[in-house]
């Protein structure tokens, strides 16, 4: 199955991944080859087989809700690329 450049751009958009035209030209055949390789899965009869999400048979793990000491905001915000006081600063998210 050959992905078109527009399909590659659409997937990249869904993933919020900026790509150059050169990236698109490189990825289209590579992704197509990988998806072709997945075709072997289609031939397997999986009727009635439940999916495995995790190897362990675990469900609804509960624990007491005990607060830990909170992290120091200054330590956390040291990693912030752009801050204003104790807030993270980003560009406007709405069109004007």
């Amino acid at each position, binding site marked *: 199955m050959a992905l078109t450049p527009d399909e*590659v751009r659409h*997937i*990249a958009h*869904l*993933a*919020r*991944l*900026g*790509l*150059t035209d050169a*990236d698109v030209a490189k*990825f289209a055949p*590579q*992704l197509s*080859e*990988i*998806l072709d*390789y*997945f075709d*072997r*899965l*289609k031939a*397997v009869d*999986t009727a009635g*087989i*439940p*999916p*495995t*999400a*995790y*190897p*362990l048979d*675990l469900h609804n*793990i509960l*624990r007491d809700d005990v607060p830990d000491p909170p*992290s*120091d905001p200054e*330590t*956390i915000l*040291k*990693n*912030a*690329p*752009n801050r204003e006081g104790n807030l*993270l600063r*980003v*560009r*406007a*998210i709405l069109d004007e």
Partner: protein
Amino acid sequence: MPDDLTRLTITEASALLKQRQVSSVELLQASLERIAATEDRIHAFITLTGHTALEQARRADDMLAKGQGNALTGIPAAVKDVISTKGTRTTCGSKILEPFVPIYDANVITLLDEAGYVMLGKTNMDEFAMGSSGENSAYGPTHNPWALDRVPGGSSAGSAASVAAGQAFYALGSDTGGSIRQPAALSGVVGLKPTYGRVSRYGLVAFASSLDQIGPFTRSVRDAALVFEAIAGHDQRDSTSAEIDVPAIADSLTGDIKGLRVGVPREYFVDGMDPAVREAVEGAIRQLESLGAHIDTEVALPSTGLGVAVYYVIAPSEASSNLARYDGVKYGYSYQDGASMWENMERTRQHGFGEEVKRRIMVGTYALSAGYYDAYYLKAQQIRTLIRREFDAAFQKYDVLVTPVTPTPAFKIGEKTSDPLQMYLNDVCTIPVNIAGLPGISLPCGFATAEDGARLPIGVQILAKPFDEASLFRAAHAYEQSTDWHKQSPPL
């Protein structure tokens, strides 16, 4: 005191520490000198932490003087840069986390710290653990200590190379599709992937959450058991961590495997396998037989050939979700000059992620997108069930399975980077183990001689049923003690 401290196992170094024949500070100095002498050729580390290591070594010596601590107390270790270390930069081999300093320790670090560990630094790796060669690091490739123009394997490239080169006495890695066992095999050291759920993933930066597991690189099987015992156990901060007791394994290893039932699944001896690898692994199987194990070569795991396809649907799907968090807003590299928040996010990810990470995010996003979810992701999860069931049936008859780790020895740097799918196929023998959540160990079983004369290590893989690391270690230790492959060191 031995002339060269840097070739000691944990077991040997710990005995010297307890007898006060050597101090932790002396072990650290030996490691730091070894790093200084070899690191420009190996490039095992992204960040070195020699200064804090000296404080840790002094603390360990205090503990040992008071008769406190365990076998790991005061032993210098290296940690893969995907494991969170409070106050020490953790990059995951990615530019997008270049400035990132974690605010908490991973659970494995907390456990090692309580035991008085000494951290030499954070090791190089394929970006976000995506790769089989170490070449996908944003910080440049790690070189195989046995042949510097070859890869050490990946993704835990620096952890494997640092132990092989005598820089670290042991190292932590992570294994999602073979990222501990494959580099262990290619670098000639022991590498263990514990059962899924054995070791807490709290503080392990997520790649594929249903497959990831932390484990050790060491220079002996007993050493791997010591580190395993130290880092395994339930942690309520990881809801997939199992509430199952961790057995004391290291001190119960006897070398006796009489009557051990060993299965050899023929599907793992794939077409195109290097003859030297086949010969070495078959030699290891004959050796187990001569030690008293019952060998059965008629094991059938017919879905093995689907493993790589199942994995490359599931792992990128989970990764595309896990890596959505890197948006340049809260931490890490951030593109700031776009016209909108969305543009900044897209450019952050464009410039912050390397090519392989982008490729896998794209594959995963596609497999999870509307209209394709059932055909790819659900289908892969169903076949995951089939692979698990085949292993379950096999472990009704066998205590352990023995297979190759890799189809070939270490390849040259740059040899396979142009063809992503060919690179993925390197992991054919290790991937099914993560899919089923089994424990697996890789240990040295021989050498191949390359065309250029290089002597390249070969590994053999031993698998057991979930939470039966004891059988796996029993078989691995008995084999190792009857050979001297693990005692050989690279000509650095």
